[in-house]
């Protein structure tokens, strides 16, 4: 009304608060916006899954080694302590293996080809829990030094990777097994003059130094290796067989290495076990 008084100009609707403004915007989300929102979510999920997978690989090759190292230390210490206390897990009443608890350490393994620092305590059993501590002895196969086939399984990659470099073994290489009272020296079968190619050479019982087999090939653990159902052969019948995964990063096949007992050393066990001089000499063997 034109009477000289100022009319308050209508300030208009109050400025929208951000919440109200975005609510309004959300309500007006177009189909395009929804599609972009969905795609962004899918993209983020895929990237997340990719990173988690990567982290799992890190876990398999690094973290499991840390756990396994800790478990192997424990098992090693327990075995050395048992020996010091006069207990031998392998001294079985009536020679019955079923008395050995699964997962318990039974012997130490040394392999000069893998270096002076290489040693593991072998446990009884080849289930996942046992193998997470170190190499495992196949239950029912021969014990170290016995007639028949002393079978040992070990991880190739991760979980301590005791048999990572099994492919480096050559004919004639020493594999040393230490028990409470004895040292056994097994030697990888094959033609020592032919290097890696010599591993396919078979001994007089038809046993090769190395073979790549199917995971189902239990025959390699038979008392007469590769001849299931047959008793141990009449001569050269103290075998050792090591098994691991092959190729390195998959479980598609198994790498098998066979060895024959070459020497046995009996030592009185007094105090902490020391490696006898003749065993130490194996680390200076030519060709290593």
């Amino acid at each position, binding site marked *: 009304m034109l009477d000289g008084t100022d009319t308050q100009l209508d300030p208009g609707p109050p400025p929208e608060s951000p919440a109200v403004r975005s609510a309004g915007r959300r309500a007006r989300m177009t189909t395009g916006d929804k599609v972009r929102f969905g795609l962004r*979510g899918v993209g*983020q*999920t895929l990237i997340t899954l990719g990173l*988690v997978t990567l*982290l*799992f690989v*890190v*876990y*398999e090759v690094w*973290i499991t080694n840390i756990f396994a190292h800790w478990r192997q230390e424990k098992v090693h210490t327990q075995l050395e302590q048992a020996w010091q206390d006069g207990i031998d897990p392998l001294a079985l009443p009536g020679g019955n293996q079923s008395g050995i608890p699964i997962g318990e350490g039974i012997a130490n393994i040394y392999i000069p080809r893998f270096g002076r620092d290489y040693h593991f305590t072998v446990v009884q059993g*080849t289930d*996942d829990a046992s*193998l997470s501590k170190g190499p*495992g002895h*196949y239950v*029912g*196969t021969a014990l170290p030094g016995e007639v028949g086939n002393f079978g040992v*399984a*070990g*991880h*190739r990659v*991760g*979980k301590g990777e005791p*048999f990572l470099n099994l492919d480096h073994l050559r004919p004639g290489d020493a594999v040393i097994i230490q028990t409470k009272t004895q040292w056994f020296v097994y030697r990888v079968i094959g033609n020592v003059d032919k290097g890696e190619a010599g591993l396919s050479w078979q001994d007089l019982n038809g046993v090769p130094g190395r073979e790549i*087999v199917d*995971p*189902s*090939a*239990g*025959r*390699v*653990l038979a008392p007469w290796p590769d001849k299931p159902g047959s008793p141990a052969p009449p001569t050269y019948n103290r075998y050792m067989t090591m*098994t*691991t*995964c092959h190729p390195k990063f*998959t*479980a598609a096949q*198994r790498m*098998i290495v066979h060895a024959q007992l070459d020497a046995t050393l009996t030592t009185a066990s007094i105090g902490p076990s020391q490696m006898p001089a003749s065993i130490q000499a194996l680390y200076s063997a030519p060709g290593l």
Partner: protein
Amino acid sequence: MYVWIWHHLPGNLALKIVEVTALLIVVSALLLFVVFPWIEPHVPFTRGGTVNGQ
């Protein structure tokens, strides 16, 4: 998802970076030491180098 988390973290930029780092460490530790050991027996390619049919 990540933008939502970032948006809802308290504090200024510096504090948010610290919080994100802490969250990453916690999640990674959870995965590496709890989740992965739990699912591992069910993953097909982590067998122990054993032969069957013994």
